[in-house]
């Protein structure tokens, strides 16, 4: 239950190995934005709607971050290593969740929804046709 097989694609995990999951951060996705030879992005250039979710990497800098998805809504959560206040956590999912109050209220994981839809589709009880 606690173990996972690391991906051979990730540069940090070059070999297939079975590792004990010792932290909620284990198994995170990996994001690198390399602006070491680029003018980079300034905060004022970022569109308003993206400001909360955009990782700003200025000129000459490289940013590497762990990325998780909220266990409930599936939103991207770029883990800020300097964060001091506690992260939201769901004990049922044993996973971080985002700061959205809706996700903190009830446990309705998006993964379960996916599995349910796939099961129903394979059974033939539903057919995916148009916009959900």
């Amino acid at each position: 239950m606690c173990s996972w097989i690391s991906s051979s694609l990730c540069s940090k995990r070059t070999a297939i190995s079975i590792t004990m999951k010792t932290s909620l951060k284990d198994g995170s996705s990996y994001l690198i934005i390399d602006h070491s030879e680029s003018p980079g992005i300034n905060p004022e250039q970022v569109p308003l709607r993206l400001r909360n979710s955009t990782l700003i990497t200025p000129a000459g800098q490289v940013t590497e971050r762990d990325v998780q998805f909220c266990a409930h809504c599936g939103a991207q959560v770029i883990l800020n290593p300097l964060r001091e206040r506690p992260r939201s956590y769901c004990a049922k999912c044993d996973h971080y969740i985002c700061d959205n109050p809706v996700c903190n209220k009830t446990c309705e994981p998006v993964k379960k929804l996916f599995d349910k839809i796939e099961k129903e589709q394979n059974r033939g009880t539903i057919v995916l046709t148009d916009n959900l």
Partner: protein
Amino acid sequence: MPRVTGAIPSWTPVAVADTTNFTDGGHQTIQGGSSTQRGECREVYIGGQAGASSPTFFVFGRTSTVGGTLTALRLAAMDPSATTASLPTNFAASTTKPQRSATLGMLLTLSMNAFGGVVRWVNGPDEIISYLGNTASLGELSLNAFTGGTPGLVGTHIVIEVV
């Protein structure tokens, strides 16, 4: 399970709003190979190729209208022995244009400057973006530009594992 990579070596994203038709050649989209196929995204890579500063606000997510009559682009098996009845389709042009979902269209925001910038996202074993089927809104994964900035020339690839 077969792992394939869909690459577009050089293209310029066209920024669009949510639920607005993508422009042919201005996006990269992966559509499921059948109505029951499930695939997982393993990697998204964007390498900037612009000749001048070009802040580009890429988003990676789902489409609420899927493409129809697709013009398929490169999709290469990473393992030579990998064969399957149906593989997903990598495309940037279609008769019916995909539209970014207003609710599920931004699973990842990959903002970068296409003048020398490089972005790479690799999935973690517990953090998976998958598609299911080939219809809206779960059957496509799209890399496209959000409104704002001045999108510049890039080369991209998306690695998908059909499960």
